[in-house]
C-alpha cells in the first residue's frame, strides 16, 4: 500500500476513525430501515388498493333506481382493449377487515362476485389458489389472501365473525373456504342474492384490460358525467394513495434531513478534532511539496472511504435485521418487508456522499494556514 493511501491511514488509525464509522453505520441503518419499513408497508397497502385497479376498473351505480346505462355497458363491451366484463355486486362493508402492515394499517372490504366469475378474477390478477376452493353463491363462504389468514391465525374451515377478532367486522358468520396468494389482496364473498347476472351487470361491473397502459375507456365514461356512476380506476385510486404517500414522504425527507444535519455537524466536529491532531502531518507534507489540492483529496478519500465502508456495513446490517425480523416476527403475522428497495438504498447512499463532503469543511479551511511555519509552533 502507498504511504499516503487511505488504507494506510485507516489501518493505523482504526480507533480514531471508529466514531465516524459507527455514526455512519447507525445513520445508514436508521434511514434505510425506516425507508424499507415505510415503503414496504405502503407496498403492502397498495396490494389491496392500487394493485386491484392496475389492470382493471370497477364501476357501479350509487343509485339503485338509476342503473348503469346501456350505452356505457355497450361502450365497455365493444372496447377492443377490454376483456372479461364481470358483474360486480359491490363491496360488502358488512364484511371488512383491518389489515395491519408493519407501519400503519388499512381497512379492506370484501368484494361480492358470482362464484362462476371468481376463477377469471384470480387468473386476471395472477392470483394462485394455494388451498381450498372457490366460495359458492349465497353459501356464506369467503376467499381470503394468505397474508390475512396469517394475520388472523385462520385456517381452512374456520368460521369468521365479529367474535373472531376485534379487527374483523362481519354482520354474519362466514366459513373460510379458500386461500389466495399474489400481489392483489381482495377478500371475495359470493353473497349475490337472487339477482340475475344481466341485472347485476347494471348495478356494477368489473372489467380487465388486455393492455394496462391503455385505459382510454375510463376517460370516455368519466366524460359522460353520469352522476350516479362511481368509477374506481387506477388514476383515481393512485391519486388518493399518492396524497397519503406525499405526507409520508415529507416525514421521510424531514427525518433524513435531521439525521444528515446531526451527522454532518457531529462528524464535522469529530473530523476537525482529529484533523487538529494531524496538523503536523499535513504541514510536513505541504512543506515537502504536496499541493493543497492533493492533501485535500487525501483527506476527502479517507473520509469517503470510512463513510462508504460504514454505508456498506449499515446496508448489510439493515438487510440482515430486516430478514431476521421477516422470518421471526413479520411473516408469521402476514406481513413482509422487502430486504432491498432501490429508492431507499439511494436515499441512504446520500449519507456517505454528503457527510464525507460536508464533514471535512472545517478541516479544509485550516489547509491555507498550513506551512512549514506551523511546524515550528
Amino acid at each position: 500500500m502507498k504511504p499516503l493511501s487511505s488504507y494506510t491511514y485507516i489501518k493505523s488509525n482504526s480507533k480514531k476513525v471508529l466514531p465516524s464509522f459507527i455514526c455512519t453505520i447507525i445513520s445508514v441503518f436508521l434511514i434505510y430501515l425506516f425507508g424499507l419499513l415505510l415503503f414496504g408497508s405502503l407496498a403492502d397497502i397498495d396490494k389491496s388498493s392500487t394493485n386491484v385497479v392496475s389492470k382493471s376498473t370497477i364501476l357501479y351505480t350509487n343509485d339503485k333506481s338509476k342503473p348503469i346505462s346501456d350505452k356505457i355497458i355497450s361502450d365497455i363491451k365493444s372496447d377492443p382493449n377490454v376483456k372479461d366484463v364481470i358483474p360486480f355486486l359491490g363491496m360488502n362493508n358488512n364484511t371488512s377487515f383491518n389489515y395491519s402492515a408493519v407501519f400503519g394499517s388499512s381497512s379492506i372490504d370484501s368484494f361480492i362476485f358470482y362464484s362462476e366469475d371468481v376463477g377469471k378474477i384470480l387468473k386476471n390478477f395472477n392470483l394462485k389458489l394455494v388451498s381450498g376452493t372457490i366460495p359458492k353463491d349465497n353459501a356464506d363462504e369467503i376467499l381470503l389472501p394468505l397474508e390475512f389468514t396469517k394475520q388472523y391465525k385462520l385456517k381452512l374451515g374456520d368460521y369468521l365473525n365479529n367474535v373472531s377478532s376485534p379487527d374483523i367486522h362481519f354482520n354474519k358468520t362466514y366459513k373460510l373456504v379458500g386461500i389466495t396468494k399474489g400481489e392483489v389482496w381482495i377478500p371475495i364473498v359470493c353473497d349475490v342474492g337472487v339477482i340475475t347476472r344481466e341485472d347485476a351487470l347494471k348495478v356494477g361491473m368489473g372489467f380487465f384490460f388486455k393492455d394496462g397502459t391503455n385505459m382510454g375507456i375510463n376517460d370516455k365514461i368519466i366524460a359522460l358525467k353520469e352522476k350516479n356512476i362511481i368509477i374506481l380506476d387506477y388514476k383515481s385510486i393512485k391519486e388518493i394513495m399518492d396524497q397519503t404517500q406525499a405526507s409520508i414522504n415529507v416525514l421521510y425527507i424531514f427525518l433524513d434531513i435531521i439525521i444528515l444535519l446531526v451527522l454532518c455537524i457531529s462528524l464535522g466536529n469529530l473530523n476537525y478534532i482529529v484533523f487538529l491532531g494531524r496538523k503536523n502531518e499535513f504541514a510536513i507534507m505541504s512543506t515537502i511539496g504536496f499541493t493543497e489540492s492533493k492533501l485535500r483529496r487525501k483527506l476527502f478519500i479517507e473520509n469517503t472511504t470510512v463513510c462508504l465502508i460504514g454505508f456498506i456495513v449499515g446496508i448489510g446490517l439493515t438487510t440482515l435485521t430486516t430478514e431476521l425480523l421477516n422470518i421471526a416476527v413479520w411473516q408469521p403475522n402476514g406481513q413482509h418487508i422487502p430486504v432491498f428497495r432501490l429508492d431507499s438504498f439511494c436515499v441512504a447512499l446520500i449519507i456517505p456522499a454528503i457527510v464525507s463532503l460536508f464533514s471535512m469543511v472545517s478541516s479544509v479551511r485550516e489547509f491555507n494556514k498550513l506551512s512549514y511555519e506551523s511546524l515550528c509552533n
Partner: protein
Amino acid sequence: MLKIDNTNLIYDIGKEVQTYALKNINLTLEGNRMIGVMGPSGSGKSSLLYVMAGLKIPTSGTITYNNTDLSKLTPKKAAELRLKDFGFIFQRHFLIDYMTVLENVLTPINSDSMEGKLKALNLLERLKIGHLANKKPFQLSGGQRQRVAIARALINDPKVIFADELTAALDHKSAKEVMDFLDEYKRKALIIVVTHDPSILENADDIVNIRDGVIVTVDSLKGVV
C-alpha cells in the same frame, strides 16, 4: 544553481519599527557541495534557508533556482519543485506517527513499488537503521528518528538539501554520524546546513556567516563560492 539577488525580508511592514530578517543578501550557490550557514540565534539564518527554498517569499529581491524565479512560481509549481528537486531536514524530525519508518521514508515519492522500497531500505541501511524499517516513530530514539527524517529527505534524489539545525536535538556522537553521512551525500547534491554549532560543519566546503540579517563573511574552506 541557486542565486539570491538584493534580497530583503522585512517583518512588521507598515509599523513604526520594521525588522529586517534579511538585508541586501546576494549569494550564489553552485555545484554539489556542503554549505554551512552560521550565526547566532535570531541572526536570520533560518529565514535565509526558507527564502532559498521558496517557502518564504522575500519582501524584495529575487531568488532564482536554475534560472527560475521562485517568487513567480504558482503554489502548485513551487510545490512540484520542492517535491522533485528539494529535500528538507528540520530540527525536529516531524515524522508521521502512524506510519512505519519505511512508509515515512517513502512518503515524498508515495510509492509502494519494490524499487522504491529497496531504495528506502538501502538508505536506512546506510544510516544504520535498516533493522527498524517496520517500527513506528514512537519506538525509536531521537537520533534514530532524525536519521529517518534524513532518509525521507533523500528518497527523491534531491538536487538541493535544506537542513535546519538538524543536529540540535542529537547528542554529539549522533550529530557527528549524521553529518558524516551527509558528507558522503554531498557528491550528489547541494547541501545547505543551518546551524549555530561550528563543530558540525567541519566537512563543509563553505560557510556563510550571517548576523542581524546581513551576510558578514563567506569562508570558502574547500572551494570558491
